[in-house]
């Protein structure tokens, strides 16, 4: 259906080809996953299928791409519109009309289908994607998952034989992602649609793929094979594969179910090794940041939250994060003592006395237009603590972060950050108390070069000249001064924005959806950086859909739903009790409580 014959693409002004030697074929009715680190040209390969590369983007394409027998050299994208449906990374940029129903019809109108056919297909597609109730809604009023489904629906109505999707789930919460992937699955199975999709979050999609095309490095030829074959060698892989490789499982499992079948011996080994000291050291190093907080105070905070899982409520005095939860109450208490004694020398060195909270939110409610974005939220953030805010798209995570940084004034209740009310504090003063890296880090960057950006950040923060540049070099080695911020990759942009925010050394650092568009390597670097900051005493609050990130990083998870806090507690307890928020390692090794591959590796070492 799609055939690449020795394709290489060179963009105008680029030193070398972005992709080279791409030569593979996608047979009809297959779901093929395109994987690789950031910047290897996945979007270029996808664009070549719809003809947007090179007709729209410019550049030179050598070799030949044929889709359903049509050569993209002689067919413009508009001439391929009836066989290829393309959905880009941002569904909002894809919408031409303003209501759901018109959007579904738009492609068919362009192709000149008969009105009766259009009407029938719109109704069918509304049902297929579960959009019937939203048909007359304005597209701007939809949630992220709904938008993505409308975008897919809008390219489905002309009945294309090929569907091309660029990161369809990266902006979605786990449940919405499942929804979108279920639709794709159904298209492949019921309609025989050929699907080619690129995605960073492999843990979500790998088990749906029939075959995987791996672009290992920029300009390197792709490796094509079954998911298990490719994952065995891929530099990017989901946690289930990492665990499989660690444990030496063969065949390599791709799903939690397959992994669980092979996991019994590993569980036994882990159970014996937990009795030793390994797990404690691992947990101790992970939770080091949270140590300055007396357990009593933390338990009081959690006790206030009513909706936690029943198991948590029964414990009158829940153990501090992570350690006790893993091996039952008995060992928990033991390790708690040990851990506190090993870490107590550190407590006096902490930059803030343990008793002061960096941020206190009391009975906060926010009303936006006619919607209660937040309802009666209580939250305290202590130094050195990392909190993950999780919940559906639109649950109020970003609003809560905006309140903490004073962008949104509270309707009722109080917010205090470092003793000041953020929305009444002057910006130059506020940046020394709290810093936010917004969802799109590019919003923070104005200057033409990295050097100017750094100089401006030093001035804004009143820091010594060179402070920001030093941070950039630390977070992002090898970036030259004259690079334009818009030329940076997603991960590099994030690092630069983080450096800009950190220049003022705010004790409270907020990140909104930091892993959107990051590959596993960039994510691992981010995790290292954030852990380092937490160990220095920075409190970190991150809003994220990425359960693996929360498992790696957070001491505490706060779940939001429709503006309410529905759970608040140590990461291990919260994520283990929720099927949609549990990371893969937890699911595989349940009932033991492990969160990340790193932990398992350290325990086995």
């Amino acid at each position, binding site marked *: 259906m799609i055939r690449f014959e020795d394709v290489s693409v060179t963009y105008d002004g680029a030193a070398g080809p972005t992709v080279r030697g791409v030569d593979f074929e996608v047979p009809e009715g297959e779901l093929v996953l395109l994987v690789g680190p950031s910047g290897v040209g996945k979007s270029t390969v996808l664009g070549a299928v*719809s003809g*947007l590369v090179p*007709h*729209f983007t410019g550049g030179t394409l050598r070799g030949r791409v044929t889709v359903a027998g049509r050569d993209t050299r002689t067919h*413009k994208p*508009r001439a391929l*519109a009836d066989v*290829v449906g*393309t959905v*880009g990374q*941002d569904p909002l*940029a*894809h*919408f*031409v*009309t*303003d209501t759901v*129903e*018109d959007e579904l*019809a*738009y*492609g*068919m*109108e*362009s*192709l*000149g*289908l*008969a*009105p009766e056919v*259009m*009407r029938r297909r719109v*109704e069918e597609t509304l049902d297929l994607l*579960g959009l019937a*109730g*939203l*048909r*007359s809604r*304005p597209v701007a009023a939809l949630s992220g998952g*709904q938008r993505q489904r409308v975008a897919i629906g809008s*390219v489905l109505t*002309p009945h294309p034989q090929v569907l091309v999707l660029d990161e369809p789930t990266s902006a979605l919460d786990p449940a919405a992602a499942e929804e979108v992937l279920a639709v794709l699955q159904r298209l492949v199975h019921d309609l025989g649609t050929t699907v080619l999709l690129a995605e960073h979050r492999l843990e979500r999609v790998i088990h749906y793929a029939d075959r995987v095309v791996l672009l290992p490095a920029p300009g390197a030829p792709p490796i094509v094979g079954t998911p298990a074959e490719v994952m065995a060698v891929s530099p990017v892989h989901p946690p289930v594969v990492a665990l499989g490789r660690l444990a030496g499982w063969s065949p390599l499992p791709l799903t939690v179910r397959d992994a669980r079948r092979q996991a019994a011996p590993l569980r036994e080994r882990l159970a014996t090794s937990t009795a030793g000291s390994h797990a404690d050291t691992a947990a101790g190093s992970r939770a080091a940041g949270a140590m300055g907080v007396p357990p009593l105070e933390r338990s009081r905070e959690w006790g206030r939250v009513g909706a936690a899982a029943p198991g948590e409520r029964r414990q009158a005095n829940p153990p501090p994060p992570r350690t006790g939860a893993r091996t039952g109450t008995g060992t928990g208490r033991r390790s708690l003592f040990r851990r506190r004694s090993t870490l107590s020398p550190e407590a006096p060195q902490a930059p803030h006395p343990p008793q002061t909270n960096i941020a206190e939110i009391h009975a906060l409610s926010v009303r936006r237009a006619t919607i209660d974005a937040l309802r009666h939220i209580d939250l305290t953030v202590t130094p050195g603590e990392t909190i993950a805010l999780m919940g559906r798209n639109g649950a109020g995570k970003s609003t809560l972060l905006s309140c903490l*940084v004073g*962008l949104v004034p509270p309707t009722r209740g109080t917010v205090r950050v470092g003793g000041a009310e953020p929305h009444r504090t*002057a*910006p*130059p003063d*506020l*940046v020394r108390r709290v*810093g*936010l890296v*917004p969802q799109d880090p590019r*919003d*923070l960057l*104005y200057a033409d070069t990295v050097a100017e950006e750094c100089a*401006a*950040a030093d001035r*804004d923060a009143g820091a010594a000249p060179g402070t920001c540049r030093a941070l950039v070099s630390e977070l992002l080695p090898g970036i030259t001064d004259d690079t334009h911020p818009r030329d940076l990759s997603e991960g590099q942009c994030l690092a630069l924005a983080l450096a*800009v925010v950190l220049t*003022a050394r705010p004790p409270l650092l907020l990140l909104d959806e930091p892993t959107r568009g990051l590959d596993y390597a960039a994510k691992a670097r981010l995790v290292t950086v954030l852990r380092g900051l937490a160990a220095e005493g920075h409190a970190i609050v991150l809003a994220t859909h990425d359960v693996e990130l929360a498992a790696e990083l957070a001491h505490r998870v706060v779940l939001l739903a429709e503006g309410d806090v529905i759970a608040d507690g140590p990461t291990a307890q919260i994520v283990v009790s929720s099927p949609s928020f549990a990371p893969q390692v937890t699911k595989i090794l349940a009932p033991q409580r492990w969160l990340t591959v790193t932990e398992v590796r350290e325990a086995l070492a």
Partner: protein
Amino acid sequence: MTPADRGPHLSSRRIAVHPGAWWIWALALGVGATRTTNPLLLALLISASAYVVATHRTPTPAARAYTAFAKLAFAVLLIRLVFAVALGSPIPGTHILFTLPEVPLPHWAQGIRLGGKVTAEALVFAGYDGLKLATLLICVGAANALAGPARLLKSLPGALYETGVAVVVALTFAPHLIADVQRLRAARRLRGRPDRGVRGLLQVGLPVLEGALERSVALAAAMEARGYGRTAEVPAGVRRTTAALTLGGLLGVCAGTYGLLTAEGGTYGIPLLLAGVAAALAGLRLGGRRSLRTRYRPDPWDARAWLVAGSGTAVAALLSLAAARDPDALHPGVVPLVAPALPLWPAAAILLALLPAFVVPQAPQDPKEPS
């Protein structure tokens, strides 16, 4: 299952009246408003249109334009009054309300006065005049609220469709730009810079434009990939005829309009205009052959549309007639100052504008979705 059984959410679309009918109705009311300065009649016009808007406004963002237009109308009225107070008025009046200190102006500014006596007559006259303009603006706002301009543009003939899409995309550009400016000004706060004031606005200008450009390019790519601009092959003869008809028609329209507006051209004006319009329409129709497009659920021009458009036109026609036959009732005098009377027949004519409120069924409230 026929589409009609599909539940209540369908009906909002099925009962929709052709957007052109709403625009004709609203603009005709505006034309009616220009025929009179009687504040009672104007107030009646505003109330009638407001009632229809209140019952039939669409739940789209364009509907919010009504409030904006109402505010603008109020501002226009105020400005007109302020000018009358500050700059004086040619209306001779005897009821002096108060006297402002007069600013002496150089001789070349003769005829302009700053300050001085403010008479009740001048104020009332300015108020009537301002109210007329305000009513006109409110009528345009009503058109926006009842059928957004985007919906109207969708009803363009096939040959103009692509231009229409371009205009619709351009129309959504401004709201996006405003949202961007707000987001980036908020981001300035995160950098520790003041987020208010003109300087803040200027500094985000470049990033906002860059972002808008990027979005436009992304949208263009999406439209291209979805088949925007696919055309059918047409014989060269048809293409040439189309061009000749369209250009000739437009020339005819221009010449005809000129003839109508000049005193000498009374004889050839109207026939030339009509011929031009006919040729241009034929050209458009022929040009539509190049376009492959079909239209999804076009708004039908049905009996309701006739009633809506007809009621508006009737108001305009009757008010024009009344203005010709009984100008005194429609333009209450200010010298001497009298209370305006409500002329019965024109008032009854304005009530015709309420017809749509009763013949067009109301759209159901947007149902709350479970998902």
